């Protein structure tokens, strides 16, 4: 009886693991899409609103959800509270703290890091160019991520269940 319960537990855990990986795969393109929207909103704030960066980041944090809210919120707070720091430092701090909560990968992180080097330190034309470049890069990543999801999403779901079953068979 106990053996049976144990076996069920293992199958259940395997299935869940598979579903979790599949979920992550589907979260990634979604979060990239949200990032793109955030950056486009940031562009509007900078170019048309001429809002100072800490305030602009706070506004973006207010409209975003999930880990992106944390990321932009942290960056804004870092800028306001740490008097002597640069945007780049604040941005890197925020990325370090918030990145593990996202489902995005290194490629997206690099785009964000690169953006941090230019944010706020040039005129509006230049800011537009850098923000648009980041958006284009993210769009390319999004296409790749959506592709990955289609290819591996279903696979992970069934693989989790099957792996659980395999372990049970081997143990019996």
């Amino acid at each position, binding site marked *: 009886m106990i053996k049976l319960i144990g076996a069920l537990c293992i199958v259940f855990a395997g299935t869940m693991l598979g579903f979790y990986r599949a979920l992550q795969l589907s979260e990634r393109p979604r979060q990239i899409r949200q990032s793109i929207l955030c950056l486009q909103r940031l562009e509007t704030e*900078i*170019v048309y609103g*001429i*809002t*100072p*960066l*800490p305030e*602009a980041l706070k506004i973006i944090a207010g409209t975003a959800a999930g880990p992106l809210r944390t990321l932009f919120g942290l960056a804004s707070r870092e*800028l306001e509270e740490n*008097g*002597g720091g*640069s*945007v780049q430092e604040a941005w890197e701090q925020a990325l370090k703290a918030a990145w593990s909560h996202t489902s995005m990968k290194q490629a997206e992180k690099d785009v964000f890091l690169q953006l941090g080097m230019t*944010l*706020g*330190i*040039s*005129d*509006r034309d*230049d*800011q537009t160019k850098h923000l648009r470049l980041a958006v284009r890069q993210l769009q390319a990543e999004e296409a790749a991520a959506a592709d990955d999801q289609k290819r591996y999403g279903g696979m992970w779901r069934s693989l989790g269940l099957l792996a659980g079953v395999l372990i049970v068979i081997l143990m019996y």
Partner: protein
Amino acid sequence: MLDQIEMLLPPNLRVLISRLPGWLHAAAEEVRIREGRPLELIHRDGFCFLKPDGTPAGKPEEAYRPTREDCNRLLELLTNHSIYSFEEELKRGYITVKGGHRVGLAGRTVLEQGRVKLIRDVCGFNIRLAREIKDTGRQVLPRITDPAARSVHHTLVISPPQTGKTTLIRDLARLISYGLWPDLRMGAGRKVGIVDERSELAACEKGVPRFDVGPRTDVMDGCPKAEGMMMMIRSMSPEILVVDEIGREEDAEALREAMHAGIRVIASAHGGGIADIRNRPALRQLSQERFFGRFVVLGRRQGKVLVEAVLDAEGRPAAEPLLQTAALKGGNHD
């Protein structure tokens, strides 16, 4: 005063400034930061270079030299990490920061169609500390009041840079707004309109003046003078207009407009004396038209700002009007 700007300095410079000896701290007027060259502090009695520990250096070689990194960070902090929101200021070459302190900038300019688009590679900063010195206007106000018109004469304050022009007209605006007249017959305070193109007069933060400019004072912040004066005249019905540093053709036009609207003007201009004013085209015409009823010339002797002369429209020393100066009843002082 220096405490207010400390928050705007990059860490290296902040530590250095916070270690300044007390007397220097109190007497500081300008901090000049030039990339790769000695850090300089202008104070009431002269200037000195600063060592890394904040004490005055005997020789320039001993002084702290701000680095490229320092300058980049300083610009970032001055603009609140948003250089894009200071494009207009970068075009004009100065930024006004919290507290009304003005930071002059020098560097390489970028041109667009032959005009300066912005300054990039900013490597020279001049942080001028704004001071609010109340009651500097009290010695001048009696000599510019016009009891007949129950107002003040059109007044032009003339002085070289750094001699307290802005401080004086700010205080005049305050006295007039509070109604602290030297003459009993003048009655209560007047409506004052300040057009503060460089945010120095009132030091507005989000439109609210940080300096005490009086209870009946409206401020048009960050607005080009000529346009701002016209807007004020049309919309805010001031009785007295206060503007800093006039000198362009449009300014003169707006001043005439104000005069025809029955508004008295207190303005300031750079110059060593009345002769300099007559050499500047826009101002020359105004003075030929006998526009200004009073000229107040400021000077500086041994670090102290003083009123050198108050002249009338003809350029002769103005007589003090007969004032009724019995003690004020009640306490309608601030």
